[in-house]
């Protein structure tokens, strides 16, 4: 009984986490929350887990719960990967801004405009200051 409460609490935590992530990664959020809810169901009705496990050729119901947990873990890792990708995007935007601003600010002789055409469309001309 204690194990059931502990597992339920952990799986409920996953459901909350998946719900919080839904906006950023809808597919991962749905899959993780679905897997966690299935896990909760099997924790409280292990006989169904055993029947399904036998049907799937896994063996014991406990093994099925374990596999569900592994799937959840992989989905959480995938979500972390996506979050890192998202952070990298922000860093890229920032680095790009820094690079272009430096090009605007630093006046290297080799990069000065060679043709003398001034910018009349955008109001900025980095050819003069790169």
């Amino acid at each position: 009984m204690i194990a059931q409460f502990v597992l339920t609490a952990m799986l409920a935590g996953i459901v909350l986490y998946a719900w919080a992530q839904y906006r950023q990664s809808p597919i991962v959020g749905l899959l993780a929350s679905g897997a966690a809810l299935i896990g909760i169901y099997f924790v409280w009705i292990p006989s169904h887990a055993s029947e399904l496990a036998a049907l799937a050729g896994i063996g014991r119901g406990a093994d099925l719960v374990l596999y569900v947990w592994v799937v959840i873990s992989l989905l959480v890792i995938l979500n972390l990967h996506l979050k890192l990708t998202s952070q990298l995007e922000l860093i890229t935007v920032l680095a790009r801004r820094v690079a272009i601003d430096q090009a605007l600010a630093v006046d290297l002789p080799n990069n000065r405009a060679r043709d003398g055409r001034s910018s009349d469309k955008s109001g900025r001309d980095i050819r003069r200051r790169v």
Partner: protein
Amino acid sequence: MPAYYARDTWVVIAAFNEAWAIGNVIGGLTSEGYRVIVVDDGSADDTAVVAADHGAIVIKHPFNLGQGAAMQTGLEAALLNGAEFIVTFDADGQHRASDVPQLVTALVKHRAHFALGSRFLDLPAVNLPPLRRVLLLLAAVFTRITSGLKVTDAHNGLRAMTRKGALCIRLRQNRMAHASEILNQIANCGLRYVEVPVTIEYNQYSMAKGQKSRDLLMILLDLFARRLHQ
């Protein structure tokens, strides 16, 4: 190509450790009257210095971000300069400056937003390894299925775009998958495109520097991960 087009054509080159080759590449372009922007993507060698010495505008990323990120930086810089036509060009010398007029002329002639270079139309790809040919053809089929664009060469870095076309492009794929991302955005924005035969000349240097066959797997993974994420 009329001088007017040359004056309004900006060539964007993303470069990473290309000090050996980039001087000749820039020289071939500036001699035709094009303005060249080199985005040095955190090179450890003298790429930025060589590029500046050969007359290019150099924008230097503080660290390596990837070819797609450098390409987007170059596009934004060209737009800031009021470019009417933007050409993307590889830094390793496998593209020919003589193909640029055909691309820009095709934009005007067909009133297209993008002129996409293809190595599989009329002109031959010089020294193209057979395995790479097969993978590139598979990539083109994949692009046809996913984007609906009827292209023959999905991963050709030589392409031209109008200002309007460039404004529609926002590359979020920092690495090699940006080529597929551009095609997807062309399709999503409903932009007009035309394919133009270009010559790609593979040499020992470009083969060592360019995409490897195994990069295809990373490209597919990057594209898949993007679909999972908002």
